[in-house]
């Protein structure tokens, strides 16, 4: 692959109007902006229909809130029930600037920490708004009956979470994502019951339909009958999650995919920063080739666990047999102030370094120890069990080892993707009327997401941002009907989806979609994983293209298109991962700096930390689709930092 290295233009592309209000008063920007946006009269809201795709935290909260306001909402999920969405697996917690612990937290501090944690590659205005509404999320969730952890006085408990020096994380045992999703799902159920939301389970969005530059609906495929259907609306909200499964092995659920976002990209939505991926430091290492996914151990474990490897290379002794003096608590040694609580990217890269050096632990030497012996001696096993019991049980079940008596083994794995569809301050993509919320968009986490911020962002977008901003778009459409599904634009999109299905079924190759997914994942992990370099990224582009060619000629999809067929579902998703992987390699190649989760070997400090190049890369890279077979065009949105001082991150 050859990439043209254009120098940064230092001005934002005219195609990327961020709509960030022109004011230096960031503390009041969102409040003032809400006043300046157009409103839709309560009696007119029912005249507008909105499609929400995806029912995780962002999608469920948005669908419920839009219906409460009076909009006609159609919600779609490919699961059998909205509550199965992968938000449910988030363990650790949700941040909010409540300052209930009286330890100096504030909206400004959460804003500051999030911009800094993202290595100065996020949009200040969006992040400030996120910090502001964080407090409302906790109120909303508590009122819904989310059983957050409480103190003996009955008030909410908090903990400090990876990378934060204040206790601002709210949690519900180790199942915070589950409980917050059940809260949003309950709000959705209330609207389904009252008729505010028309719920479509087991339907997968396979195309975005755009007419005369405006969004007019989606095409779906019924996963039980194969029926291809059109659905029209005034606006479409994509809440379809991230693209972490491009690595094949990740902590994402089996069905997580980039398809809805990718199809929107092909219809004109720019895709931003696809090279940004978070590699989570605390996952259970792979055990063999048949591994289908990796399991995350909540990083809240780093509050009490100490990370170490043997000082000796290739040390095969059991942890208990390695004396204190022969252990290297490398995070505590290198980062005395933050110790085991350094941000995720720093913790991950350091684990890779020691494993690459040959100091890894476990049968495959592919992990580092996370040791609770000191915490158990200090607090007692009962206290540790109360905090982390379910995580310890999960670990013991998967590995067959007891973490109360021997240290856990952990290793980084792909967990979250900070890139996604480019959106403006209103969360609207470059296709008018199409919005992206939650992990599906790119905006709030920059190049690295802080712990306990994903749940916050999903719910902020769904409950408190999109329901306001979408009105500004819809207000101008009063009196306009939707484009009827009988319009030729829908017929054409339906035909394309049906043709795709038939095409996959007729390849008659020799290898399963799963095989190609696994092979693709190996390339992406090796070349666009925790450390990237020019040579490897150029090779990645070629390798992915070669494998894709073989995939298209040689994939074997068993079964038919008129009944449940998980192979057929999978092949379309794998096909879109190929497209995303190519763009990811290119984005990583042209971002010739390190920042957050994007680590270019050529750009590091003497300490081995990510070295940014703010002069040339303080921008969002947003890629425009130019048709099949043509390279995407890169557009830049310059990032301005008026309220946070740029600095080299240092966690010493």
């Amino acid at each position, binding site marked *: 692959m050859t990439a043209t290295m254009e120098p940064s233009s230092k001005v934002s592309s005219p195609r990327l109007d961020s709509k960030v209000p022109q004011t230096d008063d960031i503390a009041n920007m969102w409040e003032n902006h809400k006043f300046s946006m157009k409103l839709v009269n309560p009696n007119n809201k029912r005249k507008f229909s909105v499609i929400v795709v995806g029912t995780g935290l962002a999608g469920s909260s948005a669908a419920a809130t839009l219906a409460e306001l009076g909009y006609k909402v159609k919600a779609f999920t490919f699961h059998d029930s909205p509550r199965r*969405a992968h938000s449910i697996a988030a363990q650790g917690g949700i941040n909010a600037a409540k300052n209930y612990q009286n330890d100096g937290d504030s909206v400004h501090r959460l804003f500051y920490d999030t911009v800094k944690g993202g290595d100065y590659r996020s949009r200040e205005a969006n992040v400030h708004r996120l910090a502001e509404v964080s407090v409302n999320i906790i*109120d909303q969730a508590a*009122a819904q009956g989310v059983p957050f952890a409480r103190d003996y006085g009955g008030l909410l408990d908090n903990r400090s979470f990876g990378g934060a020096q204040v206790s601002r994380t709210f949690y519900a045992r180790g*199942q915070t994502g589950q409980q917050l999703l059940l809260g949003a799902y309950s709000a959705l159920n209330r609207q389904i019951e009252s008729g505010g939301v028309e719920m479509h*389970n087991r339907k997968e969005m396979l195309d975005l339909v755009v007419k005369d530059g405006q969004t007019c609906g989606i095409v779906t495929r019924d996963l039980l009958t194969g029926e291809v259907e059109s659905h029209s609306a005034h606006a479409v909200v994509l809440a379809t999650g991230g693209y972490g499964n491009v690595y094949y092995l990740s902590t994402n659920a089996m069905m997580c995919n980039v398809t809805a976002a990718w199809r929107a990209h092909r219809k004109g939505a720019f895709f931003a920063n696809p090279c940004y991926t978070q590699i989570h430091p605390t996952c259970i290492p792979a055990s063999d080739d048949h591994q289908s996914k990796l399991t995350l151990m909540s990083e809240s474990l780093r509050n009490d666990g100490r990370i170490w490897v043997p000082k000796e290379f290739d040390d095969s002794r059991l942890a208990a047999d390695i004396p204190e003096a022969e252990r290297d608590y490398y995070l505590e040694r290198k980062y005395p102030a933050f110790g085991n609580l350094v941000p995720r990217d720093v913790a991950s890269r350091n684990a890779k370094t020691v494993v690459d050096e040959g100091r890894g632990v476990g049968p495959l030497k592919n992990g580092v120890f996370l040791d609770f012996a000191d915490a158990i001696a200090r607090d007692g096993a009962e206290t540790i069990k109360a905090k982390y019991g379910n995580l310890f049980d999960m670990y013991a079940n998967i590995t067959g080892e007891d973490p109360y008596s021997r240290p856990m083994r952990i290793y980084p794995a792909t967990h979250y993707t900070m890139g996604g569809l480019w959106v403006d301050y209103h969360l609207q993509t470059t296709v008018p009327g199409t919005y992206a919320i939650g992990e599906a968009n790119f905006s709030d986490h920059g190049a690295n997401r802080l712990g306990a911020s994903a749940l916050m962002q999903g719910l902020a977008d769904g409950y408190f941002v999109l329901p306001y901003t979408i009105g500004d778009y819809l207000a101008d459409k009063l009196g306009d009907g939707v484009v009827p599904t009988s319009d030729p634009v829908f017929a054409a999109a339906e035909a394309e989806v049906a043709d795709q299905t038939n095409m996959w079924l007729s390849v008659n190759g020799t290898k399963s979609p799963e095989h190609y997914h696994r092979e693709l994942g190996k390339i992406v992990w090796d070349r666009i994983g925790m450390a990237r370099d020019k040579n490897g990224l150029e090779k990645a582009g070629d390798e992915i293209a070669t494998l894709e060619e073989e995939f298209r000629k040689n994939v074997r999809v068993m079964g038919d298109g008129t009944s*449940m067929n*998980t192979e057929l579902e999978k092949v379309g998703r794998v096909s879109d991962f190929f497209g995303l992987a190519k763009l990811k390699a290119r984005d990583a190649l042209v971002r010739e700096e390190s920042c957050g989760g994007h680590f270019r070997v050529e750009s590091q400090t003497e300490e081995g930390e990510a070295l940014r190049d703010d002069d040339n890369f303080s921008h969002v890279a947003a890629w425009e689709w130019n048709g099949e077979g043509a390279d995407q065009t890169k557009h830049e949105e310059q990032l301005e930092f008026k309220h946070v001082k740029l600095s080299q991150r240092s966690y010493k």
Partner: protein
Amino acid sequence: MSENNINITLDVWRQNGPADKGHFETYEAKEISTDSSFLEMLDVVNERLIDDEKLPITFESDCREGICGTCSLMINGQAHGPNKGQATCQLHMRTFSDGDHITVEPFRAASFPVIKDLAVSRAALDTIQHAGGYVSVSTGSAPDANLTPVPKDAADLAMDAAACIGCGACVAACPNSAAQLFTSAKVNHLNLLPQGQSERWKRVEAMVDTMEDYFGTCTNHGECYEACPKEISLDFIAFMNRDYVKAKIKNRKLAGQK
């Protein structure tokens, strides 16, 4: 054969759609790593079937860490297999021995129609939730979260109930195909909290009545608890029954006052 690998024989329920009668088919699963999960074992079997140009076995799973509730399966007649407190995706092959014969069926209940092979529809569980599984609080109207203290024991008990993942194992394990354990978990999660009090009586009545439209009657076998991957306590069924009786009296009284 590596020392960590085993050979097993599978009898798997194959049913090509809701109208098909269905039958068992036998598969030899050779060289299965004991470190793999039960579902990873089925992945391997499926890849081999595809290599032989045969239809892979349809089954559902998603998170594969025991929290989404998508996976199901009756394994040797037990919902989610032999180990207590586990979903199928958490079951590992080290539970089994070389030479074992394993029967794999879908979750069976009149209200869980088979879609294909091992996949069933559990939509009726959502219908119960629609009937009242929420607190009526629209976005933006909530007071400060610390304005309503919740005693720690109440919060903890509500959390025990809220841990339900909605997998339907309780229904599949029950000789009556009753959904009491699921419904009681959902009712009590909210009825135990101060936030759920305003709609407490309406909720329990609506959810139990809806449940009875789809599922059988509870006769206290306790099989549901044995099968539950989250070990939801049978006490919640007692709490629900108490609330339901009270609700029937209270709600009738209110009706009489109209």
